[in-house]
């Protein structure tokens, strides 16, 4: 595996100019809101998918959250980073959606990957690993999923994650610890099989 770059929380990259973007969006400038959507679409969809499992449900939740954020933009405190504020709305939207209706299950593994046959190529292996990771994530409690995704994938600090999920910072550390332990076992097994 190539050396991955450390995750950069988008909120930390440009907090100053985000306050300006929000002010312009509140003033009715849709292009400013467009920039915020472009900047946060990826993280919002991944966080929603960590909660919901299904990609379509996750996109619906992420979209609902972004539109909700647009309506509430005037309540955003520009002295604080925008990312955690938005992601709290995303996490709540995803959790609400999961509670409201029975969510579509995670897509089943490809038959070709589970029933033997010819050796799968790298792309197929990658897809199968992704599928396994999603299934392993789905087995974790929701808070644990969110914590590990926000910390290891998105690069937010324990304090920021505590604010996003609404739990103490120490609990975030514990959730990340347990999630990692489970996921690392799975990744190691996968490497041995490969």
């Amino acid at each position, binding site marked *: 595996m190539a050396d991955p770059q450390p995750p950069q929380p988008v909120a930390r990259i440009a907090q100053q100019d985000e306050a300006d973007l929000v002010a312009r969006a509140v003033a009715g400038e849709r292009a400013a809101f467009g920039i915020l959507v472009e900047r946060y679409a990826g993280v919002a969809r991944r966080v929603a998918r960590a909660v919901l499992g299904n990609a379509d449900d996750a996109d619906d939740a992420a979209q609902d959250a972004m539109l909700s954020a647009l309506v*509430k933009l005037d309540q955003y405190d520009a002295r604080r980073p925008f990312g955690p504020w938005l992601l709290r709305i995303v996490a709540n939207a995803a959790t609400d959606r999961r509670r409201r209706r029975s969510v579509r299950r995670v897509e089943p593994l490809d038959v070709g990957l589970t029933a033997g046959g010819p050796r799968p190529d790298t792309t197929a292996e990658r897809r199968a*690993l992704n599928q396994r990771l999603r299934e392993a994530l789905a087995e974790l409690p929701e808070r644990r999923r969110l914590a590990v995704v926000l910390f290891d994938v998105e690069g937010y600090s324990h304090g920021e994650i505590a604010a996003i999920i609404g739990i103490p910072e120490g609990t975030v550390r514990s959730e990340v610890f347990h999630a990692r332990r489970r996921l690392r076992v799975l990744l190691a097994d996968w490497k041995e099989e490969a």
Partner: protein
Amino acid sequence: MKDPLSFDHRPDLALGKALREALDPGDAPVFIARVLAHAEHVRVASWDAVLARWARTGVAAALVVALAAGYFVGRATAASPRPTVSDVLIAPPAHPAEVEVVLASLMGNN
């Protein structure tokens, strides 16, 4: 993959990269276009709406303060009823010495 401690305060880059790939739904431009299309129909709280909301809050607060002030002033005046004209006339002077000085000066002038 290395075997880093699970209770590490730094992000696990390899695990993070694997999870990112697993959760990445792709088609970002389609999603962004969809959100922005829906955003066209969303009414943003404009500055005048914000001001109006604050104005409503201000009026309500002023009303409460006025009612409270009225209540306390009313109670204070009820506790000490105003003296009538006769009460004032038959009441002893607050400073008798001053009255005597006035009378003495009047009589002296005569």
